[in-house]
């Protein structure tokens, strides 16, 4: 009567008000840019950067072998770089998982006071500047660095190990910077773990390994899956870590993209590579969505 509107129409009004900022934001500065990038990937590179507005699907030909023209030849190296990026990202996930999983159990068994203090300690390093943290690993891993000095002084190695400028260094650096992304989801899951289930399994005669594989692991799997995805995705597209710790000898697709845009002035090719990464990310995310919704459906049934 005051305005002649029902509860529903009032709600609709409020909803519009609440949703319009994000809609405008993501529409204008996320979806449209991604769309433009898709368009660019099908255009001819301009001689000095930018694009020529000519239909040019050959950027993809260069990567996957089809279609091709006189100027673009199939270079299997781009796929092999992509595969090695997948490998490095996967190894990063595996190592950070191996490091964080036991740590999550360690923290989850603490008293409340100690727990929040240790969690604080674990999160704190990640407030330091990312680049400086990466640089610190360069200092640690180099032949005259702290780790080599320590190894030599305890007589473990005679010659300094060549750790810097290798896939190893890249993986160490990425594991380091992504540790909280792996740790927090796993920890959130481990903390909720009901230990009476572990005792029940024990009581029902399961061996420690069986208990771990059949009770603890399945119950903490959502955290593992979440953490793995959150680490895998930025690791796949990373170019900062390989360019510093890989000595530019370890190539990841991210480096190629950066170079296409800022060095070799081939924007469409860079856009095509970026879409390749995007596509693999979407695949991984969809896989996880399907998996978890199936798990939910199973839970509901």
């Amino acid at each position, binding site marked *: 009567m005051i305005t002649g509107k029902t509860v529903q129409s009032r709600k609709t009004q409020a909803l519009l008000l609440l949703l319009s900022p994000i809609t405008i934001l993501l529409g204008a500065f996320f979806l449209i840019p991604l769309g433009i990038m898709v368009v660019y990937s099908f255009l001819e590179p301009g001689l000095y950067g930018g694009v020529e507005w000519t239909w040019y699907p050959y950027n993809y030909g260069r990567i996957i072998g089809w279609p091709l023209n006189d100027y673009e030849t199939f270079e299997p*190296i781009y796929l092999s770089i992509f595969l090695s990026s997948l490998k490095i990202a996967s190894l990063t996930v595996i190592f950070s998982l191996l490091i964080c999983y036991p740590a999550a159990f360690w923290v989850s068994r603490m008293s409340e006071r100690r727990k929040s203090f240790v969690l604080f300690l674990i999160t704190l390093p990640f407030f330091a500047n990312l680049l400086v943290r990466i640089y610190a690993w360069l200092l640690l891993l*180099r032949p*005259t660095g702290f780790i080599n000095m320590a190894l030599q002084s305890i007589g473990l190695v005679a010659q300094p190990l*060549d750790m810097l400028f290798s896939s190893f260094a890249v993986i160490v650096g990425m594991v380091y910077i992504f540790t909280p992304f792996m740790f927090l989801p796993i920890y959130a899951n481990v903390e909720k773990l009901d230990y009476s289930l572990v005792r029940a399994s024990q009581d029902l005669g399961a061996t420690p390994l069986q208990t771990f594989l059949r009770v603890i692991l399945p119950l903490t799997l959502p955290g593992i899956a979440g953490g793995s995805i959150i680490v895998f995705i930025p690791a796949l597209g990373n170019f900062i870590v390989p360019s510093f710790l890989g000595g530019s000898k370890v190539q990841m697709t991210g480096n190629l993209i950066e170079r296409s845009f*800022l060095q*070799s002035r081939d924007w469409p090719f860079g856009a095509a590579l970026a879409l390749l990464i995007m596509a693999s990310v979407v695949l991984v995310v969809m896989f996880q969505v399907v998996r978890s919704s199936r798990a939910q459906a199973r839970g509901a049934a």
Partner: protein
Amino acid sequence: MKRMLTRLAGVASILLLTTQMASADGKLSLYNWGDYINPELIDAFSKEYKVDVTLDTYSTNEEMLARIQAGASGYDLVWPSVHMHDIMQKLGLLQAAHPNQMPGWENIDKAALRSHEDPQGDYCLPYAWGAVGILYNKKLIPDLKSWRQFFDYAKANPGKVTMLDDLRETLGVGLIMTGSSVNSRNPEEIEKAEAFIMQQKPNIGAFRYDVIPLVTSGDIAAGHYYVGGVLNVLQNPDLLGFVIPEEGATMYQEDVCLLEGAPNSENAELFMQFLMRPENAAKNSERLTNGVVNTAAVSLLPDNLKTNPSINPSPEVRAKLQIFEDLGKDLRVYTRAWDRIKTN
């Protein structure tokens, strides 16, 4: 809590206002390579002309070009290498500042007018030049003279040398070693250069720019580097050395150019004149340890710079230095070769 957010928003808007206010009066925006100007000069210029100078930096010509093309139109002066100077002039990104009509032009070495597009210096002011050679650690390699020695050392000590992460510089070394021009457009020659670098690659520790700390600490014995590294050599002459290899080397030269649509072109022109003053040119060279383009400044330099064979090479050595030219579409051949080198 809400009050805290409001206050933060307030602070943000005030900051935004002050940045905009600062741009209202006496401003100059420079877009230069990192570490490529003596900061004291900027301070001195600011004080003398009451101009607020901002300096942003880039790492490659292409990065700078990309950003200028991307609409970073607020800069006044840029420092492109000569071939990029040509490209930018062709693309209409520069405007003629006529440094050749400014006081102090008489000090400029006319041999430094290397641009094809700008032979008279109507557009840009030559800034500095230098060779790209090898910086090495004398404790590990007492005496280094040539690329041959460099690669032999690498063969004996894999991983102990670095080359620049720059496709033209590093392929350029390959071209020099296989006897071609660094501006070759011949795919076969480029292929040979690629093969040469590929052959060396297992022994090369990394492709990177930050070699000074690594060479100083001995993590790396020698690194492909710019003549600017001589600054460190002079501070640490017993430990470090810099050499222009016998086989020849690439050289670079940067010019100072006024951008089309520069918001503060008058201050930019003042800055060009300021740079041409011999005492300023000398002060800058001390810091950059680059080749001097200001003949009047040479006499003001300290002796160790004046006589340094890397900074001021003999005519025979100069003859072996090659400068990059714009390759147009053929750059793609280099890009492919470089992608393959870095991957395989």
